């Protein structure tokens, strides 16, 4: 398109087109060029010109995205990362929501360990916990599918079902008007996921692996969501206060640069203690 335009403007080119065509040709070429330029992306944009509400609303990654990277980084001892006990339902809805998040995260670890018995047990536990917060219906099909696919050792499909279970639970809670609780499920999953991730990274530290923890915007987002909890009773709950403090304290440890081994170890200790609190077990 560009070449045709330049060729047409060359002084040596003999005009063979009638007058109207000669006038129209460069105009059409210019229009085509303008249209093509309109679709050429700008090399930079000013993010501050976008509404803060849209820019700050981070799409929370699904756990599979992280495990997909971990797969490429080596073969950690996933069996060693599994918990002997998934925790205890205390009947407190915020605790159950966070516990559900941690149990779903454990599902991913069991998949990595290729332990179908554990995956099946986790699929059942997801159903029990979903029942305790009135969203059982949303995960019945997923739970059955998780168990079935674990039996067939179709690990990729199990991962996708676990991602789907997390989304279905959250969707059902939002539908019930429990947005705050839905957020706690995500946060529970993130806490357990971060505990395992830091445990894996600290055992075989590399800056590439540690970079997976570089998530300041995600932490800012969780922090805002925890501050914005509308239910005053939920906001004051001990476990919610604890997780709010955790997010606040981890934030300075994961800045923009490389995350040191020391900081990885600190985050691991902090998230490990939080998982114990969520599981309502003695440390």
């Amino acid at each position, binding site marked *: 398109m560009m070449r045709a335009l330049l060729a047409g403007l060359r002084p040596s080119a003999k005009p063979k087109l009638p007058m109207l065509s000669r006038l129209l040709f460069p105009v059409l070429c210019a229009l085509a060029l303008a249209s093509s330029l309109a679709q050429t992306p700008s090399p930079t*944009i000013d993010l501050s010109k976008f509404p803060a509400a849209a820019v700050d609303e981070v*799409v929370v990654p699904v756990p599979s995205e992280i495990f*997909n990277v971990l797969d490429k980084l080596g073969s950690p001892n996933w069996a060693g990362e599994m918990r002997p006990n998934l925790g205890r339902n205390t009947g407190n809805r915020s605790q159950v929501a966070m516990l559900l998040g941690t149990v779903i995260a454990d599902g991913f670890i069991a998949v990595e360990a290729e332990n179908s018995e554990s995956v099946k047990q986790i699929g059942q536990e997801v159903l029990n916990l979903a029942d305790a917060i009135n969203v059982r219906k949303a995960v019945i099909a997923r739970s059955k599918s998780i168990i079935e696919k674990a039996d067939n050792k179709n690990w990729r499909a199990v991962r996708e079902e676990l991602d789907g279970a997390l989304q279905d639970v959250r969707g059902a809670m939002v539908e019930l008007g429990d947005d705050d609780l839905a957020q706690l499920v995500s946060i529970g999953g993130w806490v357990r996921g971060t505990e395992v991730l830091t445990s894996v990274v600290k055992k075989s530290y590399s800056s590439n692996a540690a970079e*997976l923890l570089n998530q300041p915007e*995600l932490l800012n987002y969780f922090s805002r969501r925890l501050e914005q909890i509308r239910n005053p009773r939920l906001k004051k709950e001990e476990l919610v206060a604890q997780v709010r403090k955790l997010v606040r304290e981890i934030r300075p440890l994961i800045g923009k640069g490389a995350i040191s081994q020391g900081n990885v170890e600190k985050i691991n200790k902090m998230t490990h203690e939080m998982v114990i609190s969520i599981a309502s077990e003695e440390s």
Partner: protein
Amino acid sequence: MKPRLLPPIWLALAIACPVAWATVNDALSFAKEAAAPYAKQGYIIREDAWGGDLGVKDQQAVTAHLYKGNEYGFWLATDTRGAVITVHIYDSDGKLAESEFWQKGRFAGAKIVPNKTGAYYAIVTVEKSPQERSNWALVYGYR
């Protein structure tokens, strides 16, 4: 306007009120249609989607946390016949970060191989449209 997450409740509503929600549903179907061939290339397409409506030349940012080590694809569509839409990916410094993009009428897409883990911005633009506002839907996947 904030991009909307399109959870299953939207689909349920679409069934209940087919006229009102047909277009949101159509844009989403088209976005999934655009993504489908990439699933065969090993991409895992996320089940959730984002969408809304925009005027001509309006832009919308969808912020996603992407991991170095994965390769991501974003697929965008509109239900408006004759509309031209685009999606481009920028990093947290506002620099263009995609490795490739494509545009074909009501469909558009972009790929990115993040060189660092962090927040990235999918910028959706309605370049032209015969309608005042056009519905759009965005899905993404990774491998």
